[in-house]
Every structure is written in C-alpha cells, then in structure tokens.
C-alpha cells in the first residue's frame, strides 16, 4: 500500500471513530419523514405512501444495532450502533469494490 492510500485509510478510520457526531442532528431530513411524522404534518397518511412505505424491513434500521435498545434510550448505545454500522458498511462496500476492481483492472 503506498503512502497516500495508507493516509487516506487512516483518515477514514478516524471518521468512523467520530461518526457519532452525526447523531447530534436529531431532526428527520426533508422528505424522509416516517408515517407518523407525515400524519402530524398534513393530518393524514397518503394511501400510496401507506402501501409502499412498509415494503422493506432493514436489519439495522437507522444505523442501529439489530433488536438493540433504541436511540432515545441511550446515547452510548446509539453511538456504538452508529460506529458498528459504519464499520460494517465500510467493510462490505470496500471489499465488494476491491473485489470487483481487481477482477476488471488492467496492469
């Protein structure tokens, strides 16, 4: 591994460690409200929304530990779940692209 790649990888590890900073923003992003939040805003849940929004149940919804205590309960648990999510995400996308890249790369 050359020096540049190594230093960028070190930077990435540091970002993972401080990732829980991202939990400070507790508000939902625009247009990403859950069913109850949408209901609070407009007074009803649109019919198509109701049918589609429940389509998929992600194992680590909102970067939380599966079946773990939810993030309102403990900032520490939320932070641990967030770092774990970042580690899992980085390992999966990193190794997937490393594998694909090595298969197709020249020289």
């Amino acid at each position: 591994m050359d020096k540049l790649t190594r230093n960028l990888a070190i930077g990435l590890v540091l970002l993972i460690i401080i990732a829980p900073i991202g939990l400070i923003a507790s508000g939902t992003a625009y247009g990403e409200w859950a069913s109850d939040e949408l209901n609070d805003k407009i007074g009803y849940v649109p019919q198509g929304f109701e049918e589609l929004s429940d389509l998929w149940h992600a194992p680590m919804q909102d970067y939380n530990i599966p079946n773990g205590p939810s993030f309102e309960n403990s900032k520490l648990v939320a932070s641990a779940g967030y770092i774990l999510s970042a580690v899992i995400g980085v390992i999966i996308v990193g190794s997937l692209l490393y594998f694909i890249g090595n298969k197709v790369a020249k020289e």
Partner: protein
Amino acid sequence: MHIPDGYLGPHIYIAFWIIMIPIWYYAGQKLTTELRSKQVPLLALSAAFSFVIMMFNIPVPGGSSGHAVGAGIIAIIIGPWAAIIAISVTLVLQAMIFGDGGITAIATNCFNMGVVVPFVAYYAYKFISGNSAITSSARIIAAAIAGWLSLTLAALCAGFELGIQPILEHTAEGVPLYMPYPLSVTVPAMVLEHALAFSILEAVITAIIFAYIQRTDTSVFYGEKSKVEMNKIKWEVIA
C-alpha cells in the same frame, strides 16, 4: 437526500429504473476498459468514504437535517463513471441493510447522488480549472465550487422528483397518493437547505481532500499522467 419508499409513485421510480439500467451498464463497461490496478484501492476507499461521510448529519434551523455525499471529490479522483459504481453500491447497501433510502427509490437516489453529483462536480471542476497547472491553488477553489454546485443541483433534482408527485399521482378526488407537497414547496426546501448548509460542507470536504492529494501525488487525479508516463511520452516524441 435518501428518498424513502412511499414518497415516489410508480411513474417516477419506474422511470428512473429505466434511466439507470443503461447508465449502470455503460459505467460498468467504462470501469472495465479504464480501471488500472493502481486505482483499485482508491475505488474501494471512495465507496467506503462516501458511506461514512453520509452518516455525518448536520442540523439546520427548522428541525431538518442532512449530509454531504463526497461524490464530487470521488469523481475528481477516480472519474465520474467509476464514481457511479462506487456511490451506487453504497446506496444499495444503505437501503437494504440500514433502511436509508427506499428500495423502490434506489434508482432515483442513485441518479441524484450517484450520477448528478459526480458528473456536475467533475465537469464544473474541469471547466473552472481550465488550463491552470494541476498544482495551482486555483484548482482548490474550483474543486470547492464543484462540490457545492453538484450537491445543490442534486437537491434540485430530488426536490423536483418529490414535488411532481401531487401532479402525477392522486386519487380521483385529487388527494395526493405519495409526497403530498407541491413543487413550490419541495424545490425551495431542498435547494435552500443544501445551498446554505449541506453543499457548503460538501465544498469544504472536496477542497480539503483535493488540496491534500494535490500536495502528495497529482498523478492520482483522474486523467492526470504520472511523471513516469510523462517521461515515457517525452522519450517517444524524441525517438
């Protein structure tokens, strides 16, 4: 900017699957013909970096929040076509494992963050940089503007896709079936919070990483030749 399931009706989300399938195919072809083994670690790091940077949510007044994408600097380093692959893989994983962005909306989200951001950023950076030397500090400004512009235009696209819903998808009585807010609300909301907050973060990230690589090894940038290759060309010309 990860649009969840339920906000887009089939007109828009199917249209974006139709748009994205040939783009993914072509991006895969480009990756196969262009990628050098030296770039493989950077490709993997790019996707990982984008995954993590999108977790840094920052709050904005009014209770909303958002994040940078990192796809602009990725496009400047590994090229816009490779960036499509890196960001798309990241977005698929975010949707499937972490519930960030919908399954039906994967193609739409990949278009906004995985196509609009890298392409706008790469060509804005190229255009503003012009013929300046690769080591020129003006290029840091170019990268920052490219980062800001690319995420802001992606937000405009997302605002449009959301705001067109009440026109395309409603009951016989005119009640919206998906996103209930019209274009006049969604476009300013998405564009303003990005232009004034998240895109500024994108600009800062783009500039910092650009400046670091510029000082370390400019041959890493997409389309830039390394010193060894330049010497080879020089010798070929002389010979």
